[in-house]
């Protein structure tokens, strides 16, 4: 039985009086590449924001190894936040700092490492994402794919146990997006990091996901759970199959024969 790292319990999210999703229950296991799927506007990114503590839920809880993020006081929250790194949709790099400064920022703020050691760690993180030697570049001097990778390097700065990705392949061409997928897989193999990804990129979902959930905008809750392949094989929900078949849903008989 794999160990559960994050468990989401009865989570209900709303913006003001608008309900986004209700009664979500799932858990992410150690070493998973967990995919949050769903159509546009169903609340995937909102769920991610709740999981990393940027928004607080209407009801329910998000627990990291048994510790509640919702109930945590500010000190506990800081400790919890150190456990995870986040790659935002557009990288989220601070545009007024160089890549080196971007990555060393969390290191100088939350460790007491020497400046030399921090420089080494920055160089190593950049090398991990294939950007060795780019310390002195500003984010705007890089292409979109490179910015994403640099954002990944910053997300990994403090060696987090869990990495969150919000639409990592948005705005990237298929080849670059595949490179990013490969990178995520290799990093997971080497670092044994648990990864949570919000995406609707089908090729990524099937290439890297080994667990996941499917959110629905109409019923406002999750309608399928498990690995993408499992969903494809067992789900009875037309919406899920429609999504995973990219709208070319085969006939019901055809699906059973598969």
């Amino acid at each position: 039985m794999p160990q559960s790292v994050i468990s989401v319990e009865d989570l209900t999210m709303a913006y003001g009086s608008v309900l986004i999703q209700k009664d979500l229950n799932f858990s992410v296991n150690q070493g998973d590449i967990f995919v949050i799927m769903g159509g546009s506007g169903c609340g995937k990114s909102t769920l991610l924001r709740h999981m990393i503590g940027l928004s607080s839920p209407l009801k329910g809880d998000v627990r990291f190894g048994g510790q509640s993020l919702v109930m945590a006081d500010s000190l506990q929250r800081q400790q919890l936040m150190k456990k995870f790194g986040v790659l935002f949709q557009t990288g989220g790099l601070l545009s007024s700092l160089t890549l080196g400064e971007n990555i060393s920022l969390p290191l100088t703020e939350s460790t007491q490492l020497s400046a030399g050691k921090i420089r080494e760690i920055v160089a190593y993180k950049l090398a991990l994402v294939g950007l060795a030697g780019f310390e002195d570049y500003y984010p705007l001097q890089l292409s979109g794919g490179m910015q994403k990778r640099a954002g990944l390097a910053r997300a990994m700065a403090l060696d987090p146990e869990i990495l969150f990705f919000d639409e990592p392949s948005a705005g990237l061409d298929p080849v670059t997006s595949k490179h990013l997928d490969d990178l995520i897989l290799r990093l997971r193999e080497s670092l044994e990091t648990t990864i949570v990804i919000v995406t609707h990129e089908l090729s990524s979902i099937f290439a890297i996901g080994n667990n996941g959930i499917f959110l629905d905008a109409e019923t406002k809750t999750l309608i399928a759970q498990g690995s993408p392949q499992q969903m494809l094989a067992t789900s009875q929900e037309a919406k899920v199959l429609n999504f995973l078949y990219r709208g070319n849903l085969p006939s019901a008989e055809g699906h059973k024969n598969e």
Partner: protein
Amino acid sequence: MKGLDITTPSASLVVQRQPFGLEVIVAGVWTMDAVLPSRSQVLKAIHASQSSTLLRFDMSAVQRWDSALVTEIIAITQAAQHQGLSVDSSSLLPTIQNLLNLVSALPEKHHPPKPPHRITWLEEWESGFTHILQEAFATVEFIGQLCLSSLDVIQKRSHFRRLDWWLQVQDCGPSAFPIVTVISLLVGLILAFVGAVQLSLFGAQMYIANLVSLGMTREMGCLMTAIIMSGRTGAAYAAQLGTMRVNDEIDALRTMNLEPLAFLVLPRMLALILIMPLLCLYADLMGIFGGALVSLTVFDISTAEYLDRTIHAVQMKDFLIGFVKSSVFGVLIAFSGCMRGMQCGRSASAVGDAATSAVVTSIVFIVIADSIMTLICNRFGI
């Protein structure tokens, strides 16, 4: 969590000479929040060894570790390879071996580091001068485009959105009332206080009314309104247009065959040009009222007297001068705000720069224009 836990052994790094070569023994907790040992002994040993010596790691006593250890290994390995030693990578922990492979597997793109260029004073002057020239050209260009698009609107070749204009009028007019009220009331108050102290030396406190009313109508009313509006509305214009540029909205308008100047800039400019004189008149009245407050309460001048002196002191032309000045300031504020917004770069910080430079530009323009107009009025005895 910071610092060292007493019960766990601290990180240690020891180098030993063995028959096969060098052995680096790594042990303990190697995390970023632990206290890490220096690697100088290891480096010294490496430098003292002959090339093709074998370097092995003993990592059997390593407990917890993270990037702190990986970077240590990278540094030692690089130093060893530089010295010509052969590193036995199979002696590393398998995971670290994987990570090292990952670091070296991804293609290292060699971009030449930007050459450290020392700027001489001559170059600094040159770049400053070209910058001023470019600014001047850009300003002239913007004026030209503005004229052309106004012509287009007049000849009905491009569309002017009245609704937008009306929204802008509401935004820069009524919503600016509170701040204009407070500031001009206080300016009137200050003028009265400063003036009264000096005038009382001659026993001429009666003339506070003259000072305040003339000061407000001819200078302070329009100047203060202009400065408030350049901070409030000019900066907002620059930020709005700048953000629209960052979000590709301005390019989108162009592709829809809508001229951004006619669509976005003209309504804003016309709104401010209409509103500025009105706000200025209002500020004049508020300032005079502020002066009256001080004169009546602190300096024992009666209401009738104050009113009488004010009516005698201020003529229609004084109001008109303020009126004309504030119209000119309105043009300048709207112009600098919109120009900086349209010239904005494409990053988040560029929007901030645009707003800042809109305020600076408009205040500089306002002060220069005010001096010129005051000089002209003085010359012709208006």
